[in-house]
C-alpha cells in the first residue's frame, strides 16, 4: 500500500509540476493590483485537485488543465464576491454558490489539445496572429502597439478579435470531438 501511495504522490507531484507554471501565470494576472495572492489562488486550486485526484489523474492533459482552470476561476469569483459582501458589510452569501457553473465551459475546452490550438492560431489573420503570439509571449499592450506602430486601443481590439476567431475555429472541432466520443463509447 505504501508503494501505491508513493506512486500516487509522485503522480500528483508531476501533475503539479506540469500545470503550475501556466496556472500561476494566469493567477498573477487575475490577482494583479488586488489584495489577493496569486500563489494562494493556485495553492487552493491544487488542494481541491488533490481531493479530486483519483478522478483527474487518468484524464487527458487538456481535460485536467480545463478542470484546474474552472476551479481556479471559481476560487477567484468567490474572492470577488467575498470582497463585495465584505465591503458592504454583508455575510458571505456567495459561498453558497459553490459548485455552480462548473459545467459547460470546462466541457468544451477540455477537448481542445495544444496542437489543435496551435493550428488554430496559425489560421488567424496575420496581424491578429502576430499580435496574439506577442501577447502570449508576455508582451503588454503598449509593447505590442509599439511593435506594430498602432495605437494601444487597436491592440486591445485585435486581441479581442483574435480570441473571438480562435473560439470560432476551435468550437466546431469540439463539436466533432464530442460526436466522435459519443459514437466510440
Amino acid at each position, binding site marked *: 500500500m*505504501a508503494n501505491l501511495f*508513493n506512486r500516487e504522490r509522485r503522480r500528483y507531484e508531476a501533475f503539479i509540476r506540469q500545470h503550475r507554471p501556466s496556472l500561476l501565470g494566469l493567477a498573477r494576472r487575475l490577482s*494583479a493590483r488586488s489584495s489577493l495572492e496569486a500563489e494562494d489562488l493556485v495553492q487552493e486550486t491544487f488542494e481541491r485537485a488533490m481531493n479530486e485526484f483519483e478522478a483527474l489523474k487518468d484524464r487527458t492533459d*487538456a481535460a485536467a488543465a480545463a478542470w484546474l482552470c474552472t476551479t481556479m*476561476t471559481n476560487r477567484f469569483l468567490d474572492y*470577488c464576491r467575498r470582497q463585495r459582501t465584505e465591503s458592504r458589510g454583508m455575510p458571505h452569501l456567495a459561498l453558497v454558490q459553490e459548485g455552480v457553473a462548473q459545467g459547460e465551459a470546462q466541457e468544451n475546452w477540455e477537448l481542445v489539445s495544444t496542437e489543435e490550438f496551435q493550428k488554430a492560431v496559425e489560421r488567424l489573420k496575420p496581424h491578429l496572429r502576430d499580435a496574439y503570439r506577442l501577447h502570449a509571449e508576455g*508582451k503588454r499592450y503598449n509593447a505590442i502597439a509599439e511593435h506594430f506602430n498602432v495605437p494601444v486601443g487597436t491592440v486591445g481590439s485585435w486581441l479581442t478579435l483574435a*480570441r473571438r476567431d480562435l473560439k470560432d475555429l476551435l468550437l466546431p472541432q469540439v463539436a466533432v470531438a464530442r460526436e466522435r466520443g459519443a459514437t466510440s463509447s
Partner: protein
Amino acid sequence: MTTPCTNNRLHLFVDGELSATEAEAFRQHLTRCAECESGLRDLLQLELLAARALGGAAPVAESPDVVEPVTAKVLPLRARLQKVYRTAVPLALAAGLATVFIRFQAPPEIPGEVWLSSADSRTFEARLSHPKADRFLPYSPMRGTSHATEMLPLRPLAELEERHDFRGIAAAYALRGDWQQAEAFLGREAESADKANDQAVVALSRQRYEEALGLLTSALRQNPNHAQALWNRALVLRERDLLDRAAASFDTVASLGEEGWSAEARRMAAELRTQLAEERVRWRRQVTDAWLTLTGDAPWDVKQLAQRPVVARAALYEAVRTVTSKEGVEALLPLAKELDALGGGSVLQDYVRQVATRDFAARAPLAQGYAGLLRESETKKDATALLESLRRSGERDIYFGALVHTGSAVVDATALSALRGFAEGTPDPWLHLLAEREGIRRELAAGHTAQAEKQLMDAMLTCNGLGNIAPCMELN
C-alpha cells in the same frame, strides 16, 4: 456611457491593462454580471491553452508601470548588478554610508546562503553537481517555490562570475527555481561531466527527458561513477515509467556509499521494484480474467470489455491464439471491431479474419498447447517442445505469443529473429514494440546498458504516442 461590459473591459482586465481602481470596479461588476462571468470562464480557458500551447509566460502585471517582457528575463549579472548599484550607491552615499563601497570591494567569501545552506528540505528531486548545492536533505516538494522569492545575493554571484564558476551560479538559480537563468549560466561553463549533469537537471525540470538522458549518458561516459548523474538518470527513467531500469540506476548510487543519499537510493530502488511487481501482478490478473471471459462459455459484453481497451486488446490476442475453431475465432470479431474503432485502422479485425481462414485441424493442438502455457506460466519445462512444434508449424502468431511469453528470444538469437520477422509482417505497432523489447532485453543481458536504455526510452515514447491502446508498462 461606458458600462463595464463594453469596450473589451473583460479582456483589458484579464490582460492587466486596467488601472487599480478600474480593476477593482470590474471585479465588483463581475460578481453581478452573468455575461462577463461566463466570458471570463471562456477567456481564461483560452489563455491557459495559449500558455500551454505557445509556451510563453503569461504577462504579469504587478504594477501598471512595470513592463518586463519575458525575453528580458535572462539578464547578464553585471547588468543586474549595475541596476542595483545605480540606485543603491547614491542612496547610501546620501545617507553617509560610504562603507557600502568598501564592503562591496571586500575580500570575497561566498556565503552558504547562495545555495540555501539553511534550508531543511530539498524542493526538487534531482541532484546538482555543485557540492554546496548537493547536501542530502529530505525531499519535500509541497513546500515548493517558497525559495523562489528569496532574494539571491548578487554580490557573491558577481564574485563567482569573476571566478568563472558558472556552475555555482547556475546552482544558486536552480535552487530558487529559476531554470532559465540556470540554463543561461551553464551555457558559459566549460565542458565537463558536472556541466552535462547540471544541464540534464535543467532538461529534467522542463520535462525534456530524452535530452536529459543524452546529457547524463555523456556525463557517465566521462565518469561512470558520477553519483549525481546516476541519480538523475534514475529519475529520468522513472519519469518515462521504465521502473526496472530506474531501480538499477538507484542501486548503483546506493553502492557508492554517500551519506544520506545511499540509503535514500536504496529505498527508492526497493519502492520502484515493489511497485513494478504489484503492477505486473495486477496487469496479468486483468488480462487472464478477460481472456478467460472471452474463451469461456458464458456470453460477454463487448462494450464492457472495451471499457478497458488495453487489457481487452491483450486478452483478444491471447484469445485468438488459444481458441480451437473457426467459429470460436469469428466470435471474437465484434471485440476486434470495437477496439479498432478506438485505436484506428483495422489491424485487429484483419488479424481475426486471417486466423479464421487457418486449418484448425492443424492449429487446434498448438492453440491448446499455448493455452496450457498461459495457464501454467510458472512451469517452463514443456515450452521447448511446444516452441519447436510452433516454429515448424505455420501458426506464426501463436509462435510469436509463445516466444514473448517464455522470453526465449533473450537467450536465443534464432528465436529473436523469428520474433522480429513476424512483427515486421504485421501492422500492429504494439507487436513491433514487443519484439523490440525482447531485443533490448538481449542488449541489457549483454551489458550494453546505455544503448539499451536509450532504445527503451524511444520505445516508451512510441508506445505513449500510440494513444491508449498498449500496455506501455510491459516494456519494463
